Every structure is written in structure tokens, then in C-alpha cells.
């Protein structure tokens, strides 16, 4: 029962992700007004860690890594890292060392430091 429920959640999540990715593939957030805009950016004028993600995803889906990097380099770094974190957590029995390293306090605080420094940096330069 639990297994069935879990599987259907995975299937639904997969379909949602595919739907969203195809929206971001076919529509350019630069040209369309229907993409949500960052509230933090609108209110404060500063870029938040997520600003540019939508345009970066659009560029990435078209294979334009350079443009994606310009829009949101952090996302480009954190997406593969998140994938690795997810794999390490799901298969922690098989990769105990990887799991222990990635989920130790210092590597998580390191990720946090990168996010903060990069966000400050992108607003200064």
C-alpha cells in the first residue's frame, strides 16, 4: 500500500517536472509576461539567489550553457550538486562515505557560504 502510494507520487512529480520543463523550453521568459517575477527583486531592487533561474533553465534546455551561466551561475552549480545529494541520500547504504561527507555539517555550511557570498557578489559586481 505504502509502496503503491509512493510510486504514484513519483509518477505525478515526474509528469509535473516534464510539463514545467517543456513550458520553459518552448517559451522564453525574456519575451513573455506570463512568467512570475521575483518579489524580492521587485521590492528591493537586489538580485536574490534564485533570480535568473527561469532564464537560465530556458537557456540550459536549449543547450546554451554560457548564457545559462550568465543568468544564474549558482543554479548551474547547485543543480548537479543537488542531484548528487539526492543520490547519496537515496542510496546511503551503498555509498555511506559519500553520504557522510556530503551531509556533514561543514559541507552543508560550505554550500550555505557559497550561496551567501555569491548572492552578495552578484549584487556588487
Amino acid at each position: 500500500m505504502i509502496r503503491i502510494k509512493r510510486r504514484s507520487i513519483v509518477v505525478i512529480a515526474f509528469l509535473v517536472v516534464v510539463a514545467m520543463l517543456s513550458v520553459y523550453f518552448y517559451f522564453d521568459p525574456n519575451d513573455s509576461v506570463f512568467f512570475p517575477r521575483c518579489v524580492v527583486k521587485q521590492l528591493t531592487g537586489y538580485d536574490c539567489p534564485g533570480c535568473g533561474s527561469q532564464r537560465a533553465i530556458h537557456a540550459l534546455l536549449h543547450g546554451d550553457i554560457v548564457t545559462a551561466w550568465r543568468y544564474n551561475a549558482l543554479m548551474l552549480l547547485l543543480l548537479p550538486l543537488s542531484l548528487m545529494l539526492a543520490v547519496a541520500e537515496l542510496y546511503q547504504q551503498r555509498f555511506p562515505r559519500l553520504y557522510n561527507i556530503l551531509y556533514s555539517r561543514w559541507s552543508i555550511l560550505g554550500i550555505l557560504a557559497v550561496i551567501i557570498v555569491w548572492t552578495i557578489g552578484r549584487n556588487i559586481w
Partner: protein
Amino acid sequence: MEYWIAVNKIKEGPLTEEQIAQRDLAPDTLCWREGLDLWMPIAEVPELAHLFEQKDDDVEQTSVVTPPPLRPMSDSAPATEVPKQLQSQPMQIKLQAIPAKCPPTYLVWAILSTLCCCLPFGIAAIVYASNVKTKFNGGDIEGAMKYSERAALWVIISFVAGLISLPFQIIFSII
């Protein structure tokens, strides 16, 4: 096979069967090994039960109480069998509160919520996530669960805040 035991809520392990045999442990000491979903009284772990049968004067009782293995050996066995066995053992249901594995950190969700423009809630979730494993490794299982729950809470707050602000985001976009 390696075993972990919890004495006064402090996790110890990995221990071998011989090491456990040498210690004078109470039959209700919580024990876990790979393959078990939950911690269970050491006298009820099938491979260790014999250690306690000898010591215990109430031989009859232990042999009756010893449950069949928690996991059915073959995959074809119906999965519903496990909960049924658990129900007949009220003790084990209470034990579900103590996880054998480290509670989830929700770190991936925290990072994704940070990238989805829900500052600063995702950051709070990352800070809580960073403490989960440290607490768990230190034997503080309750503390680890507390931080795990806090991390989950902030991830949820983050996504809910994002959803609530979505109409405003689209209004900004159209203006």
C-alpha cells in the same frame, strides 16, 4: 552481522554478536541491525534471541514472544504481512519514534527552494539541515529529529510563501 544497541538513548555500535553476548544487557535493550525497519528489544532480534533464552528463567515466555523475522525473506510474500505482525506487538509501534537511520535533512529541498526565489526561508532550512547529521552521529537522536523537522518546516514555509506570492509575481510581471 553488525548490531547497534541503544543504552539510555545513546547509540552504540557496530557490535558483533560476541560483544553483545559479553555485555550483561537487559532483554528489552533496544537493538538494530541492517534489514530491520525499527529498533526492537534485543531479546526479540531473531539471531540474538538465544543469548537471552539461556539467561532468562522464564524460558517459556521468551520462546513464545520471539517474532518471525520482520522482513519476509522473499519479495513475493505479501507486504501487508509486516504491519499485521507489528500490530500484535504494541511495544514495537511505540519504538517507531526512534529511527535506525539518520533522519532526513531535506537539504535538496532546501536548496531547490532557495533557487526558486523564496528567500530567506530556504536559508533557514539549510542551517537546520546542517545540524541533523552532527546530532545523529553524536547519539542525540531526538535532537537530530528536531532539526530534521525544523528543516522540513522551513522548506514547507518556503514553498508556501512562494505559492502565495505567485499572483503578486505575475502582477509585477504584467505591469
